[in-house]
């Protein structure tokens, strides 16, 4: 008999979501969907605010990745001002962004996903969390805490506070980096590398324990999208956008951020507050693409720093190139954590990092601005239109998790088809449906920022799972 399985809420992710799995009369998976159940409205309530407030306003979208919004928003404001920010302002914003990626990836790998990886997908739910990891492998818990702490402390040293720092502003940053703070940051970084070395030594073997998950976790051909440095290496703050195909060949290169409406489309679904993005030239839903750590590694020939390059080479030898299975997002995050620490060491070693020239001042010179950067979870885009007084008239945000929405949904269905058999449910099967969502590390609070035409569908489901009634508008 046809019935529906509901996983509500999905655990160990940022934000609120549920998954419905529809079982057909034949006992096979008919459909599986990820529903985002949060409504935020940021694009609407910022209208008529002065543009220079936008970085601080948009940072409040999220408490985990506010720095990402500060940077993308400030870049959009830089475009409205019509300024080229000082080189050291870009350098400092870049370091802040790298620290953000470090702490966010640490949260994802160690706090949210390591319980599944270390304890097993079928381990009892009452043990499958950070306390369980601390009991089983306290050194892993310590390294995760330390890595997140390093990222957060760097953000605090640069921006004044760990969450919602006000330091990134239109035109640059509000204050230069003091020498003693530079020295404090540099002193922390070797600790981070040592923690990652220990983690990778352990997790290279752990990842091998999951062949079925590698096979089934959103493992399908797709495009990959993100920034690069223009020379085939990783880039998170600024650079040309690239699209790479499932075969690893470049589909589009050096795309301009301000042209994004020509190559990115968005569609609202009727059962989720999260819009789905797709590559316009290939249409919906064929233009499905992925962003974030896995995609970024697929866009480049190499990371650009030695330890990360070595680890990436080993992963590609094992899993092939481009990386197709979204299970490899976890390993990709660890490689990116290595790279961002190495990159911060490079940037902080530059004596110009202490330069006092960190801000360009101007009045608005353009009525529109687009800012793109790489957030921990993928490409982040802020687009604003202002009137001649600099008041926001319109805002559009495309969030990393929105880019990945189609892929997450396909992944949920793929995992349900693989692990939910004959309508029989196990805790491990349901956990795997959640785990494929966790692999993408969605930030749902960020991604459900739209307002306007609200997709609202209410389903009344009986105790036997039968759909009794439905209201939609």
């Amino acid at each position: 008999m046809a019935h529906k399985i509901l996983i509500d809420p999905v655990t160990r992710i940022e934000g609120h979501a549920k998954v419905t799995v529809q079982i057909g009369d034949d006992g096979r998976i008919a459909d599986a969907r990820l529903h985002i159940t949060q409504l935020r409205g940021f694009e609407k309530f910022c209208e008529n605010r002065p543009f220079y407030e936008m970085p601080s306003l948009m940072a409040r979208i999220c408490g985990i990745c506010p720095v990402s919004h500060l940077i993308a928003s400030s870049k959009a404001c830089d475009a409205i001002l019509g300024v080229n920010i000082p080189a050291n302002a870009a350098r400092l914003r870049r370091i802040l962004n790298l620290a953000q990626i470090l702490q966010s990836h640490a949260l994802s790998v160690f706090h949210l996903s390591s319980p599944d990886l270390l304890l097993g997908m079928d381990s009892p739910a009452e043990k499958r969390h950070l306390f369980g990891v601390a009991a089983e492998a306290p050194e892993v818990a310590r390294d995760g805490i330390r890595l997140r702490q390093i990222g957060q402390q760097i953000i605090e040293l640069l921006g004044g506070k760990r969450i919602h720092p006000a330091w990134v502003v239109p035109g640059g940053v509000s204050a230069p980096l003091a020498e003693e703070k530079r020295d404090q940051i540099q002193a922390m970084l070797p600790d981070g590398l040592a923690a990652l070395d220990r983690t990778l030594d352990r997790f290279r073997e752990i990842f091998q324990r999951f062949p079925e998950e590698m096979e089934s976790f959103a493992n399908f051909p797709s495009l990959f999208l993100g920034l690069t440095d223009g020379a085939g290496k990783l880039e998170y703050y600024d650079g040309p956008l690239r699209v790479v195909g499932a075969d690893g060949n470049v589909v589009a290169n050096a795309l301009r951020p301000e042209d994004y409406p020509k190559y990115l489309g968005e569609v609202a679904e009727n059962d989720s507050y999260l819009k789905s993005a797709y590559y316009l030239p290939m249409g919906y839903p064929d233009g499905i693409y992925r962003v974030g750590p896995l995609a970024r590694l697929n866009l480049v020939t190499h990371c650009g720093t030695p330890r990360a390059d070595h680890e990436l080479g080993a992963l590609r030898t094992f899993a092939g190139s481009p990386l197709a299975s979204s299970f490899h997002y976890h390993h990709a995050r660890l490689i990116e954590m290595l790279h961002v620490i190495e990159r911060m060491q490079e940037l902080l070693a530059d004596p110009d990092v202490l330069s006092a020239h960190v801000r360009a001042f101007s009045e608005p010179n353009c009525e529109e601005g687009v800012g793109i950067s790489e957030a921990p979870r993928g490409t982040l885009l802020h687009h604003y239109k202002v009137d001649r007084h600099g008041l926001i008239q319109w805002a559009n945000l495309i969030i990393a998790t929105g880019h990945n929405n189609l892929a997450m949904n396909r992944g949920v269905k793929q995992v349900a088809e693989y692990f939910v058999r004959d309508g029989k449910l196990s805790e491990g099967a349901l956990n795997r449906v959640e785990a494929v969502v966790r692999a993408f590390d969605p930030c749902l609070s960020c991604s459900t920022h739209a307002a306007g035409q609200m997709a609202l569908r209410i389903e009344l489901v009986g105790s036997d799972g039968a759909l009794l009634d439905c209201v939609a508008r």
Partner: protein
Amino acid sequence: MREDDGLGCRAAEMMQPEDADVFTCRQLTPELAAAVSVASIVVFLDASVSQAAFTVAVHAVDPELTAAWSHHLTPAMLVGLAARTYGARPAAAFLISGGVGRLGWGAELTSAAERCATEMAAAASRLVKQRYDPTTGWR
């Protein structure tokens, strides 16, 4: 930004730096476990909606060692996480809670809440200064 919800942070601001290492945060996170594990005494300061307005209560915190955790850490869970992760925990831990009066929109405490925060800080200082020896108890 919610008036007396800031009781704990305000009381922490009133602590003298020579008395203790003071950490101010909106939420308890795993990153605090390292500092908790090396402390001899930990005092948590927080606003409470489940006691009479502007009253101060002191609760002993026993570590919770087998908690299931997703997003929200309690003081007991944090002390338990410190024990699990670092093999060490404070000899004593306390939660000093202050009852809220108003939770409207505003960055300032009500004046009664300011007095309550002063009492909370004084209670925390007494706990810290008295010192606690795990073999002989309070001095």
